[in-house]
């Protein structure tokens, strides 16, 4: 062994290695996408604050790509009443502490007219105050979430618990005949509040919740949970465990013979991204409920997917519902509709008032309309079951409910 004298310099060397590692993949200073043409009144400045790096990066990048895609479409068609949209991106880095500073940049330096973004509820909670209260700017939140967000000037364009549960749970109970539910969940706000709502719907429909349990997000071992499912004769698992704890849970559930014995696994955030998360046999029969699946038979949605694939060929960030991408599409389009309604005025009061009544004739999975005074949108909801075609998984849409009420606020 060579003797090495590691003093202050060596220590600093180690410390800079740490910094260098943290630097990997960060976009410092944000990003601007300018339109190719100008308007006398100047561009409409749209801020996107989403998770380009960190744990939520797959969804965040999908959001950013969808925003670019739909803004390009709008600008190509002549902008909003002749005014082009200029896009400003700030990385929220899957970390609320980093996010707050970056979001402030959007508001104070870039002076954007609207901010869209945030994926986790923790992120929404962290950035809504700098945007809505201190920043006096309109905020659009695109992800499916636990509900109860009724802040003025904050519009939610993803599905609420009612939209995800009101049709799905009666389907599980009445159509599939499942009565005994287990609710294994990750221990944070979305599962807690979603379960509270889902439990009410289960009990109202004559079902029974055998147990509702919360785990650390990265739990690796679920033997005890599986034994409780077997011992309680559970026939429907309403899952809100999320990655990275998700995959070992689903595997152990499958190994216990749950599905083989007629059990149904249901999970309301499963979209096309999740199809590759488990081996096909473990996914088979899974029931999900979202505002859009790529299998939905709707010509407008199909055109959207084709356009997206053309702009981002071979991308790993899909245009799906579970990752807030559909909510992002709706958010941008709602904003467009609102600005059209104000006759091009960009003041927060005017746009918010118009946004409150905005209607989209089309979108991924169909149109949507804001429910006046409720900050949430009615939209179509679909129930899909996962099929296994010889090792390849896909969703089959088996139920569509039109214009489901969000029942919020």
């Amino acid at each position, binding site marked *: *062994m*060579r*003797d*090495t*004298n*590691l003093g202050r310099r*060596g*220590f600093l060397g*180690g*410390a800079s*290695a*740490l910094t*260098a*590692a*943290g630097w*990997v*993949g960060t976009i410092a200073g944000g990003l601007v996408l300018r339109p190719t043409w100008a308007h006398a009144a100047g561009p409409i400045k749209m801020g996107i604050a989403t998770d380009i*790096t*960190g*744990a*939520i*990066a*797959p969804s965040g*990048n999908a959001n950013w790509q969808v925003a670019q895609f739909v803004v390009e479409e709008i600008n190509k068609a002549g902008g909003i009443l002749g005014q082009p949209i200029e896009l400003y991106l700030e990385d929220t880095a899957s970390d609320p502490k980093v996010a707050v500073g970056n979001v402030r940049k959007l508001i104070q330096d870039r002076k954007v007219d609207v901010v869209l973004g945030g994926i986790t509820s923790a992120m929404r909670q962290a950035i809504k105050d700098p945007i809505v209260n201190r920043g006096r700017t309109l905020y659009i939140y695109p992800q499916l979430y636990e509900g109860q967000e009724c802040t003025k000037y904050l519009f939610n364009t993803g599905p609420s618990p009612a939209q995800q549960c009101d049709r799905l749970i009666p389907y599980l109970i009445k159509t599939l005949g499942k009565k005994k539910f287990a609710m294994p969940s990750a*221990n944070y706000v979305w599962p807690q509040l979603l379960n509270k709502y889902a439990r009410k719907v289960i009990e109202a429909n004559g079902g029974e919740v055998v147990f509702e*349990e*919360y*785990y*650390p997000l*990265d*739990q*690796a*071992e*679920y*033997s*005890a*949970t*599986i*034994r*409780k499912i*077997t*011992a309680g004769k559970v026939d429907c698992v309403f899952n809100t465990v999320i*990655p*990275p704890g*998700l*995959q*070992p849970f689903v*595997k*152990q559930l499958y*190994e*216990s*013979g749950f599905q083989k014995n007629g059990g149904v696994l249901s999970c309301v955030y499963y979209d096309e*991204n999740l199809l*590759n*998360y*488990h*081996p096909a046999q473990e996914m088979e029969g899974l029931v999900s409920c979202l505002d859009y699946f790529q299998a939905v038979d709707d010509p407008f949605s199909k055109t959207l997917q084709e356009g997206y694939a053309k702009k981002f060929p071979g991308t*790993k*960030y899909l245009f799906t519902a579970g990752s807030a991408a559909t909510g992002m599409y709706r958010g941008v389009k709602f904003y467009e509709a609102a600005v059209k309604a104000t006759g091009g005025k960009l003041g927060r009061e005017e746009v918010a008032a118009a946004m409150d009544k905005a209607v989209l004739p089309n979108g991924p999975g169909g149109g949507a309309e804001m429910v006046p005074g409720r900050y949430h949108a009615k939209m179509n909801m679909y129930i899909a079951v996962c099929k296994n075609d010889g090792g390849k998984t896909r969703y089959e849409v088996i139920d569509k409910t039109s214009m489901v009420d969000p029942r919020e606020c």
Partner: protein
Amino acid sequence: MDFAIKFVFDIVAFTSVMVLIVLGLGVIASMMGIFNFAHGELVLLGAYTVYLSDAYGLGTWPGVIAAPFVVGLIGLALERTVIRRFYKAPIIAMLGTYAVGLIIREIVRGLLGGHYKSIPEPISGAFAIGGLEFSWWRSFIIVTTLLVIAGSWLLLARSLIGLRVRGALENPMLARACGISTGRLYALTFAFGAALAGLAGALIVPLYQLSADIGIRFLVQAFLSVMLGGVGTFGGPVLGASAVGGMAAGLPWVVLPVLADPLVFIIALVVVRMRPQGFIGAGRL
């Protein structure tokens, strides 16, 4: 009865996973006095090797077999370039290995695009004994763990190389005076520990998803296992890992799952307080 047997099987399977992960960490901590914070990322690299072999159409087996060698070589390179500079300063070594781990982890995260990847089991399905079904891959992991424990013990406690390694740890000056190249031995030991981590990663990745954080989630529990079992012995970390793994899997049956994790730590810390030397006192390899 059926119920109990399945539960015990699951607990034993998870305990084997813990032991596999802890083994390499324990070897490096015990033989070299280095707490390797990059251990989780060596596990990750083992898992990533399997993913690559599967993604390039070779199937999972070549990856599982190659993983210990690939990661062992990476470990060797790491030791020669970075780790050997830290032997005199164990605290700095922790920071240094942490930095190395962070770099590896973020590079892999970039390569995966932050996504999770499912890796199929090399032997899938289950076999039945008396109407009870047991997963082939979990059984394979249990058997492999036992073989690896036996093999490592023979190598370190019963072979000439093992004797030299222990000698080099006990008194490096004297060992060098006897003509033993301690530098080379340290490099080999580190590579061996890394290879064990690579094997662990390759074996466990079909049970979990491949993600950049696959190693880190076990790391804290792995360190706890080493403390609990006792640094400086071979059997200590194995026993410690068994205790921690068994408790982590079994406790959620009796207490709220969110409380199980902290409870494992509390129990382990109480034990460490009462037996600071761990289950097995140092120096009895």
